[in-house]
């Protein structure tokens, strides 16, 4: 059997569509140049040292005790944070889906799930230090403990757990909602207690999902740069070690090899998560809930669970609130009254606050629409079209999800500072705002693509086919049918990309040049120096910007989002 003619015809039909072909070529070039190539150059650089090809550089870095210690530290933290986040997330999700809550607690839950999205990644580290550190509000002034150290292992674990558990909570909530209540009712009917139902029915069904949540958090944790940087103290993780190797020891080859090690770990985890657990989760929980679940009203279950979660949520919210308040204290740790606006004043008068916000804001503002459009195009191509390079495009844009920012940053330094393959070609790119924008785009692309793909999968394929059949070419189909139908996903992708860009730090901190002042980098610097009030002031303004962006999006969607009207069908 020869499928040659069909394939040849498909190719011819594709070529008859120049816009489509150009788009694909541009996409492939972009993905290759800015995702694959920087990773490839890391591999090349770590194998090809001064002495030619070999394992020399790897031997050298594995002989460094602080590097091997960092690997151990990173894995240990990832593991513990993964488990804690999954468990806390499960508890919150269970309470939300199964227990009748009052409106206030429900509101707390919503805020908790929202906060990590709109805040910069290291806010919790700041407030942790300010509340529980040596001069902490709680430790010193409430409890009178003068030598409490939050720096190090436990600091990172607590902060990362608090940062990442809302992600697990959202994931598991979605899965729990998909469990058909009649399964559990059947078990109850046969005489199982609520606890037995949970252990025998709910938990086994959810197990792959919990594994999934664990791994996602694990990857996030080992890729996290900002928290270990601020609260890690002398407890180094891979991300911070790589950063110090490049900025402190100027050992670029060593840093490249370390980045390869970190990349291998995250890729492995990502592969397990993607191909093993994700498929399993989908397989066990395909059913739609046939009708509403009977919520638990039993007071002996309801009260302790709700109170516990409400307190937890309140604590998390308090941690976040601590940041704007901290920015208003005259001197953190010594003088709390009267509240003052002087730090905000200083941000703008002495510390180039205006330029920092302008730079961050502008770069993110350019990156956001590019990311959103790009991810919608990729989703459209991946879900709706068939062509040879489709697998490549999907794989590479998903691969970016598994690449820690620090790794990408080192890759860009190695890949672009001397031009492509150190030849000087495209050397002008390095150090410009453009490369920062590209990093923003690459870092947010996977999230956007993922949401685009899931939005498009819900749309019947024949709707686009019908437009195509009526005489529209691919470009027209995309503009008049696809994009309007996934408007909501596009808008939220836009805002997510903006928020992620303006709060990004891990890759950016390696690439930013003095001509650009970025807020996150400023916050990091002031936190490092111990000027927490200034860091808080910067962070507060940043949170206001991001929260404003999210509010704007919700407003926009309410009035202009057509997709909702369609979904109500």
């Amino acid at each position, binding site marked *: 059997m020869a499928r040659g003619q*069909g394939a040849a015809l498909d190719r011819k*039909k594709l070529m008859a569509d120049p816009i489509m072909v150009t788009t694909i070529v541009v996409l492939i070039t972009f993905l290759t140049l800015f995702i694959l190539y920087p990773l490839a150059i890391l591999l090349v650089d770590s194998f090809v040292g001064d002495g030619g090809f070999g394992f020399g550089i790897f031997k050298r870095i594995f002989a460094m005790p602080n590097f091997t210690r960092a690997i151990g530290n990173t894995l240990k933290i990832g593991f513990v944070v993964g488990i804690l986040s999954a468990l806390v997330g499960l508890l919150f999700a269970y309470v939300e889906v199964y227990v009748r809550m009052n409106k206030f607690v429900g509101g707390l839950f919503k805020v908790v799930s929202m906060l990590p999205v709109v805040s910069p990644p290291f806010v919790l580290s700041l407030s942790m230090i300010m509340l529980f550190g040596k001069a902490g509000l709680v430790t010193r002034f409430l409890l009178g403990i003068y030598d409490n150290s939050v720096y190090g292992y436990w600091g990172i674990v607590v902060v990362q757990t608090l940062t990442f558990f809302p992600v697990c909570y959202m994931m598991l909530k979605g899965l729990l909602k998909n469990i058909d209540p009649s399964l559990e009712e059947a078990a109850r009917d046969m005489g199982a207690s609520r606890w037995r139902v949970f252990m025998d029915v709910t938990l086994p069904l959810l197990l792959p999902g919990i594994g999934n949540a664990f791994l996602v958090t694990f990857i996030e944790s080992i890729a996290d740069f900002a928290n270990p940087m601020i609260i890690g103290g002398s407890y180094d993780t891979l991300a911070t070690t790589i950063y110090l190797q490049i900025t402190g020891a100027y050992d670029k080859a060593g840093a490249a090899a370390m980045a390869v090690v970190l990349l291998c770990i995250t890729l492995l985890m990502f592969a397990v998560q993607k191909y093993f657990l994700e498929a399993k989760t989908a397989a066990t929980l395909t059913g739609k809930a046939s009708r509403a679940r009977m919520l638990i009203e039993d007071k002996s279950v309801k009260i302790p669970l709700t109170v516990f979660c409400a307190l937890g949520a309140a604590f998390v919210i308090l941690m976040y609130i601590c940041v704007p308040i901290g920015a208003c204290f005259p001197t953190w740790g010594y003088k709390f009254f009267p509240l003052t606006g002087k730090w905000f004043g200083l941000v703008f008068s002495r510390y180039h606050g205006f330029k920092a916000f302008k730079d961050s804001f502008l770069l993110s503002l350019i990156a956001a629409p590019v990311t959103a459009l790009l991810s919608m195009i990729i989703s459209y191509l991946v879900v709706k079209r068939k062509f040879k390079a489709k697998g490549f495009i999907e794989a590479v844009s998903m691969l970016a999800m598994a690449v820690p920012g620090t790794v990408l940053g080192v890759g860009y330094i190695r890949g672009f500072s001397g031009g492509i393959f150190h030849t000087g070609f495209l050397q002008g790119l390095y150090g410009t705002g453009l490369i920062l924008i590209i990093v923003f785009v690459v870092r947010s692309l996977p999230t956007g693509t993922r949401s685009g793909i899931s939005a498009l999968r819900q749309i019947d394929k024949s709707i686009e086919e019908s437009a195509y*059949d*009526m005489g*529209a070419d691919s470009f027209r189909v995309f503009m008049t049918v696809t994009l309007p*139908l996934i408007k909501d996903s596009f808008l939220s992708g836009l805002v997510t990309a903006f928020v992620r860009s303006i709060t990004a730090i891990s890759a950016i901190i390696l690439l930013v040049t003095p001509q650009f002042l970025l807020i996150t980098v400023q916050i990091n610097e002031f936190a490092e120096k111990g000027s927490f009030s200034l860091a808080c002031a910067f962070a507060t303004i940043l949170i206001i910007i991001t929260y404003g962006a999210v509010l704007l999006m919700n407003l926009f969607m309410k009035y202009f989002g*057509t997709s909702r009207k369609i979904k109500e069908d």
Partner: protein
Amino acid sequence: MEKVKKGVRLEHISKIYQDPKTGKDFYAVKDTSLTIEPGSFVTLLGPSGCGKTTTLRMIAGFESPDEGEIYLGDEPINELTPNKRDTAMVFQSYALLPHYNVFDNVAYGLKLRKVPKDEIRERVMKILDLVELSGMEGRMTNQLSGGQQQRVALARALVIEPSVLLFDEPLSNLDAKLRVTMRTEIRRIQQEVGITAIYVTHDQSEAMALSDNIIIMNKGVVAQMGTPQEIYYHPVNEFVADFIGEANFLRGKLQRLEQGNAVLNVEGSELSVPARENMKPGEEYTLVLRPEAAHLADQGGLPCKVVLSCFMGSYQNYHVMVGNTLVKLEEHNPKNKRIYQVGESCRLVFEPESVHIL
């Protein structure tokens, strides 16, 4: 429409797919040649997986044939993309653009063809009138019932005046009663417009009601092509006979031929039916007997025993054993007839002419 009507010709068309489980290639459609006359209504009928939808999608251009060439009129269209083909499809899921209202949905194809605004308005209104949706043009599509949505889909396909109209199981999402109404509508509109139509379905009564010609497909190949009558009364094999309507199969050895009649031994009894060509004494033949063509009586015909007798309203449903063969039959208008009970022995009677020899 002053347009020249065009037919469709498939020449040795094959489509190969990969089985997602085993990874092996298989023919979804194999070496299929068809000629569809201009202005005729042709149905592709077959069980799921027979290749009918794949054939239709190859004509529309969504799939590319691995072998052979497709012609629209006299023009080969293999290399044309769906948007360049002069065909319009009505989809199973209607596939209306959910963010447009009825008018904009129907006008979409005309706008793409840059038809002037006034003309668009005129043509859309005329078509909406034809599908009896006048006054609905401002509605969003999700405010319409399933039947109305399908009319919009039909209007949208008709308004661009394609050479060929393609239907991909358009009625299978509707309830039974509406299906019957809509199929008469589709036939009426097709006749009024005089367009060539190719219709895919797995519902044989739909195929019967609609078509000038029915093409029965099985496992990627055409099993039979003909008018509904030809296919019903003269099926070429057991698959076709069984797929179209209900069929009983009686097997018998040919004893002798006499005066144009074939005398066969069926379950121990002699049966004389009109012979077909090329029959040889001594060979086994299969006889097709439709349930409505036979009835039960006290004498004549073949001896049988009743194993099921069930009142169905308009008819009495019987299952009888003729020797070792189960025969199902329908005795229509049973009110004043003698009803045979389970266990009774009687005779299975039918006209020799109503039997078809495979």
